[in-house]
């Protein structure tokens, strides 16, 4: 019997919304446990994108014809959906980008280049994805600034006790993951924001791994920038979001130059457009924005609390099941976790685990998960990572455990 919290969430009904899940891989039912890499797409998202191309395709913000008007409306409607999804004060604060990576690069290249100088400091953490390390490293190298790294514990939790000591008068920005992609740790963003704001330092939150697993309210979090990718929220690849506080966005120089980001151009001087257009040079991913809007509609149609309870129960079930397998050690055991089960197996390299699991239909990620410094900190060259989404089931966790028995059998 399922518990009451879970029965409110009909996982089998949800699964029917995702056509890709209904297939066999190497003769076995697909068990998709690589959701931290990308999530699958519900039929509603696929249909919305097909409709966008089949019925409403035209360029936006130009052209007086009806198709252009429809495309523009669809694009701006998607912006409003994102605004409501994040509880952002203004739709203008939503900037469409390719994904989290571009959102962070945008902030580093605009806010960062305008505000970080020689001898200044940028603070990140030891558990960041490469996309929240390298853009800041590039900025610091260019400016002669210092990249500082807040350490983590052996369990994979931030050393918040060290934060005050690492924030200085030279710190210009703090950039931190909301949820760790490799460990699943949920970071205490409001505490970090409080401490940074006490010194007048803005905070960027990498929300790539958070949006599909918990409600995100940027006003409640109090951060200054929030970035996420559509494809990790059941939407398409190639579309993502940067939210920023309006006064900050207005003061920032533009990102890329081109069409749509200008209000007038002469060969002598260009006047830039207002926010958000200032940051959206060139024809954007219009169908992608429509797909993201449909993904948000999909998520909003769910009982989010019941979905979270379902995921938490799966995580607890998976943690117990993996811990019970002899020779397996879970990497990342923070008290507050979401969605991610990273593990290593005695005498078996994660890459071999990945191949043997795939042959049994179980898709996981193996490797360093674009967090090489974190892998070094945890003392492992790589991990095997099963990452969950709302459509996963206990039976799929059982299939993972069964497939791991085959790994042990081959390597015994």
């Amino acid at each position, binding site marked *: 019997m399922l518990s009451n919290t879970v029965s409110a969430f009909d996982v089998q009904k949800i699964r029917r919304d995702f056509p890709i899940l209904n297939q066999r891989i190497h003769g076995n039912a697909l068990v998709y446990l690589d959701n931290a890499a990308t999530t699958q797409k519900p039929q509603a998202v696929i249909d919305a994108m097909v409709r966008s191309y089949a019925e409403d395709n035209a360029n936006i913000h130009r052209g007086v014809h009806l198709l252009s008007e429809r495309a523009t409306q669809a694009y701006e409607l998607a912006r409003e959906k994102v605004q409501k999804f994040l509880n952002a004060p203004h739709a203008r604060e939503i900037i469409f980008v390719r994904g989290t990576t571009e959102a962070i690069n945008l902030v580093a290249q605009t806010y960062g280049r305008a505000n970080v100088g020689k001898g200044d400091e940028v603070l990140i953490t030891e558990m960041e994805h490469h996309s929240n390390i390298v853009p800041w490293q590039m900025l610091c190298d260019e400016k002669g600034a210092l990249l500082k790294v807040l350490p983590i514990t052996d369990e994979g939790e931030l050393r918040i006790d060290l934060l005050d000591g690492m924030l200085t008068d030279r710190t210009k920005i703090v950039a931190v993951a909301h949820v760790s992609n490799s460990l699943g740790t949920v970071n205490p963003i409001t505490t970090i924001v409080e401490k940074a704001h006490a010194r007048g330092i803005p905070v960027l939150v990498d929300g790539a791994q958070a949006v599909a697993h918990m409600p995100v309210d940027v006003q409640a979090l109090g951060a200054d920038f929030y970035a996420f990718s559509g494809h990790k929220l059941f939407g398409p690849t190639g579309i993502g979001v940067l939210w920023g506080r309006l006064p900050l966005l207005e003061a920032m120089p533009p990102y890329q130059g081109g069409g749509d980001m200008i209000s007038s151009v002469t060969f002598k001087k260009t006047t830039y457009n207002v926010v958000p257009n200032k940051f959206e040079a060139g024809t954007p991913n219009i169908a992608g924005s429509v797909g993201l809007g449909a993904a948000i509609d999909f998520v909003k149609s769910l009982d989010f609390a019941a979905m979270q309870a379902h995921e938490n129960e799966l995580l607890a079930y998976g943690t117990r099941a993996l811990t019970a397998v002899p020779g397996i050690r879970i990497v990342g055991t923070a008290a507050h976790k979401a969605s991610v089960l990273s593990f290593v197996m005695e005498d078996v390299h994660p*890459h071999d685990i990945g191949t043997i699991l795939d042959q049994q239909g179980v898709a996981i990620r193996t*490797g360093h998960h674009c967090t090489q410094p974190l892998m070094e900190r945890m003392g492992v060259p790589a991990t095997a990572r099963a990452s969950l989404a709302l459509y996963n089931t206990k039976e799929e966790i059982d299939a993972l455990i069964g497939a791991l028995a085959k790994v042990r059998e081959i*390597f015994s």
Partner: protein
Amino acid sequence: MDLRELYQEVILDHNKRPRNFRVPDPVNRKAEGYNPLCGDKITVFLYIEGDVIKDLGFQGTGCAISKASASMMTDALKGKTLSEADAFFEQFHTMLTVPTTSDVEMDALGKLAVLSGVREYPMRVKCASLAWHTLKAAMLQTEHEVVSTE
């Protein structure tokens, strides 16, 4: 394809007890190889006298396929000339990437033919070839050099 054809006993044995997993003494060539996809790192060491590989060994971390491939490579190439090692490299590479490798060519590879199953797993070809690309770099270079299979 059955997993046992990929993970044959010989491969599992070389993974568990890699041969020549050491730094030869003396040594006069060395190269590092890295596969950023999975984080595998390997260092290949050679002692070359004239045009003969007098001794060779390797160190590092990696999956069963990359470790077994490195281990069998060191076994196969000890005492070979540089041009023989080059020819071996070409044959091995062909076996991993060309599906129609003939029996005669496979025979020339000896024990290494057990790695032919890897070609059914395109994502793993880089694992099997990492040590070999690193060997090639070590033969060409006298200085410390990092090789990437990406």
